[in-house]
C-alpha cells in the first residue's frame, strides 16, 4: 500500500499548517456556547471550494475534531455544552471546576479527546470497509433499541429522582413529535401555526435548556463565577495522565462506543457521549460519585465524542452516507469539488481518502499541544473576565448561535422559550438532561419503531423483527442490564452484608 506516500503527503507543510489552523479555529468555535461543531464546518466549507480536495478535507476534519473537543471548555467552565456532544461533560466537568479542579478537568478532556479521536481515526484508516458493513447491518429495529438504551440513561441522569427524570424525558419526547412526522406524514401538535411546522430544533432547544438557566443563575447569585484560591494552577498534566491511566478501560470502551455510534448514519455524536457516560457509570465501583465531579465521567464523555469524528467518516467515505450531520456538509463539499463519493472514493481516488485520514490523525495529535495551551488560556480568561461582561457575552452567543443555524429568528425564539421553561423545571428538580435526551432520541425511537413495524407487517415477521435479530438482542441486553444493574447490585451487596453479619455472630 502506498500508505507511506500518503503519510508524507499529509505531512506536507501546507497540510500541516491547515491541520493546525483547523484545530485552533475549531476549538475556539466549539468552545463558545451556541456555536456548534456542525455550524463551524458548515460556515467554513465555502472557503474550501478553491482548494484541492485532500487539503480541503484535512482542514474540515481538523475543524470538526477541534470543535468537538472545544465544546468541553464551556461545559467545564460554564456548565453549558459548547456543542451538543459535550452535554455529558457538564455532568462531572462543572462540579470539578466548582471545587477548583477545572484545570484538571480541561487537561483530562484534552487527553481523552485526543485518545478517542485517534481510536476513531485509526479505525477509519484500517477497518473502514468492514466497519461500514457493520453500520449497514443496523436497521430500523436496531436504531429503535439503541434509542431505548439511550432513554434508560434518564434514570441515571436525574440526580436521584428517577420519576422526575421520566417526566422530563416524556416532555422531551413529546416536543420531538411536534411537526410533520417522517413516517405517516401526520402533522402533530403544531397548534395550527406555521411556526411549529418544522418542529423544535434540537440545537436551539439544547442551547436554551443549558445556557438560559446558567445565565439566570449567574445573574442572581452574588459570588463571582468560579472562585479560585491562590494562583491559577498549571496544566496538572502529570496528575491528569495518572488519572487517565487508571481509567484505561473506560477510555478504550468509551472510544469504542463513540466510534460505533458515530458510524451509524442518523445516530449522531451527542448520543454516543451519553451512552458512553452511562456505561462508565454502570461499570464503575462507585456509580454514585458520578455527577459530582468524578473525572471518569469527563473521560468517558470526551473520548467518545471525539471518536465519533473518525467513526462518522466511515460510512461517509466508504458508502457516501453521512454518519453525522457535519459529515453531510463535508460530503456536499466533496461533491462540489467533483469528487465521486461513495465506494469509488476508496477505490478510484484512494489517495485523497488516505491522505485525508492520515491528515485527520495528524490533526488529532496536534490537538494535544494546542488543546493544552488553549485550555489553560481559556481557563485563565474565564476566571478573569468579570461576571458583568461574561453574562452578556454568553447571552449574545446563544442568540447568534441559534440564529445562525438557519438564518431564522424563530430559532432564537425557540431557544429562549424552551430555555425559560427549562429553567423553571430545573428549579423544581426536573433537570434538563432528560428533556434533551427525549428530544434527541424521540425521532430515532419513533422512526425506528414504526419503520420496523411496517417492514415486519409486510413480511409477516413482527415478533421476529423486534426480538429476533442478533444486534438488537445485544442492545436489549445492555439496556436491561443498565436498568436493572443498580437494583440488582444493591440487593447483592445487601445479601453479602447480611451473610457477613450472620457469619460474625
Amino acid at each position, binding site marked *: 500500500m502506498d500508505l507511506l506516500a500518503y503519510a508524507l503527503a499529509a505531512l506536507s507543510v501546507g497540510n500541516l499548517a491547515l491541520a493546525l489552523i483547523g484545530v485552533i479555529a475549531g476549538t475556539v468555535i466549539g468552545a463558545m456556547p451556541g456555536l456548534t461543531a456542525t455550524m463551524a464546518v458548515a*460556515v467554513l466549507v465555502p472557503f474550501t471550494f478553491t482548494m484541492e480536495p485532500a487539503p480541503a478535507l484535512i482542514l474540515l476534519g481538523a475543524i470538526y475534531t477541534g470543535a468537538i473537543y472545544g465544546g468541553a471548555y464551556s461545559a467545564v467552565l460554564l456548565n453549558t455544552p459548547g456543542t451538543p456532544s459535550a452535554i455529558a461533560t457538564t455532568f462531572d466537568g462543572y462540579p470539578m471546576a466548582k471545587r477548583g479542579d477545572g484545570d484538571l478537568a480541561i487537561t483530562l478532556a484534552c487527553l481523552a479527546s485526543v485518545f478517542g479521536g485517534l481510536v476513531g481515526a485509526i479505525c477509519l484508516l484500517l477497518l473502514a470497509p468492514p466497519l461500514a458493513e457493520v453500520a449497514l447491518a443496523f436497521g430500523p429495529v436496531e436504531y429503535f433499541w439503541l434509542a431505548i438504551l439511550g432513554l434508560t440513561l434518564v434514570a441515571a441522569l436525574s440526580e436521584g429522582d428517577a420519576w422526575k427524570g421520566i*417526566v422530563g424525558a*416524556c*416532555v422531551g419526547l*413529546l416536543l420531538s413529535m411536534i411537526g410533520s412526522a417522517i413516517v405517516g406524514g401526520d402533522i402533530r401538535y403544531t397548534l395550527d401555526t406555521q411556526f411549529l411546522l418544522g418542529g423544535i430544533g434540537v440545537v436551539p432547544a439544547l442551547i436554551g435548556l443549558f445556557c438560559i438557566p446558567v*445565565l439566570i443563575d449567574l445573574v442572581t447569585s452574588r459570588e463571582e463565577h468560579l472562585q479560585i484560591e491562590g494562583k491559577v494552577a498549571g496544566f496538572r498534566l502529570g496528575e491528569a495522565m495518572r488519572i487517565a491511566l487508571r481509567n484505561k478501560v473506560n477510555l478504550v470502551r468509551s472510544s469504542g462506543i463513540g466510534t460505533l455510534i458515530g458510524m451509524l448514519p442518523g445516530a449522531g455524536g451527542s448520543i454516543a457521549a451519553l451512552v458512553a457516560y452511562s456505561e462508565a457509570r454502570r461499570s464503575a465501583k462507585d456509580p454514585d460519585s458520578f455527577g459530582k465531579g468524578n473525572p471518569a465521567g469527563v473521560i468517558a464523555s470526551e473520548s467518545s465524542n471525539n471518536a465519533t469524528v473518525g467513526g462518522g467518516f466511515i460510512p461517509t467515505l466508504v458508502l457516501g452516507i453521512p454518519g453525522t450531520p457535519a459529515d453531510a456538509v463535508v460530503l456536499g463539499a466533496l461533491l462540489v469539488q467533483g469528487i465521486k463519493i461513495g465506494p469509488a472514493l476508496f477505490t478510484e481516488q484512494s489517495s485523497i481518502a488516505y491522505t485525508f485520514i492520515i491528515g485527520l490523525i495528524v490533526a488529532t495529535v496536534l490537538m494535544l499541544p494546542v488543546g493544552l495551551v488553549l485550555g489553560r488560556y481559556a481557563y485563565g480568561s474565564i476566571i478573569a473576565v468579570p461576571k458583568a461582561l461574561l453574562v*452578556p457575552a454568553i*447571552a449574545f452567543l446563544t442568540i447568534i448561535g441559534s*440564529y*445562525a443555524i438557519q438564518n431564522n429568528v424563530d430559532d432564537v425564539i425557540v431557544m429562549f422559550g424552551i430555555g425559560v421553561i427549562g429553567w423553571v423545571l430545573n428549579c423544581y428538580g426536573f433537570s434538563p438532561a432528560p428533556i434533551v435526551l427525549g428530544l434527541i432520541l424521540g425521532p430515532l425511537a419513533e422512526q425506528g419503531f414504526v419503520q420496523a413495524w411496517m417492514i415486519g407487517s409486510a413480511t409477516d415477521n413482527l415478533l421476529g423483527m423486534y426480538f429476533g435479530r442478533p444486534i438488537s438482542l445485544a442492545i436489549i441486553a445492555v439496556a436491561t442490564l443498565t436498568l436493572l444493574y443498580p437494583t440488582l447490585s444493591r440487593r447483592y451487596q445487601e445479601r453479602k452484608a447480611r451473610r457477613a453479619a450472620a457469619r460474625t455472630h
Partner: protein
Amino acid sequence: MQPPGRTDTGTVVIATLLLILGAAALWESREFSALGSIFPRTIGIVLLIACMITLWRTLRGRTRPSRGLFPDGWVRGVLLMAVMSLWIALLEPVGFVVAGVVAYVLLALITEREPMTLWRFLRFVLVAAAFVIAFQVIFVHGLNVQLPTGTLFVSRA
C-alpha cells in the same frame, strides 16, 4: 426529605401542569393516523403516570426539597429575561448591531453589583460595541452568514 409540614408547592404545580399537558397530548392524538399515534399515546400515558407518581411522592414528602424559583432574589433574574426577550423581539426591526450593543450594556448593568461609575458604564459600552461589531464583521463579511439588518432603518431609505 421535606421539613415536616411544608409541601413543595412548586413541584406540585409543575407536576399538575405537566399532567394536563400529557392529557392534552393524548386528546390531540385522536386525530392522528394509526401509526402516527402510537408514540404520542404511549408517551402521553407514561407522562400521566410519571406525573401522578411524582405528585404522590411530593405530597407524601418523599422527595428532595427543591431550590425554588429565586432563592437569591428575583429582580435580576426577571430583568435578564425581560432584556433578552426585548433583544430577540428587536433583532429584526433595529438590526443585529444596535439590538446587540444595547442589550449587552443593559445586561452588564443588571449583572454588575458594584456601584456604577461613569467609567464603568463607558467601559461596558466600549466592550459591547467591540464585541458585537467584531462578530458582525466576522459573520456577515467573513463567513457570508446573514444577520438581521434593521428593517425600520432600511424602509426609510
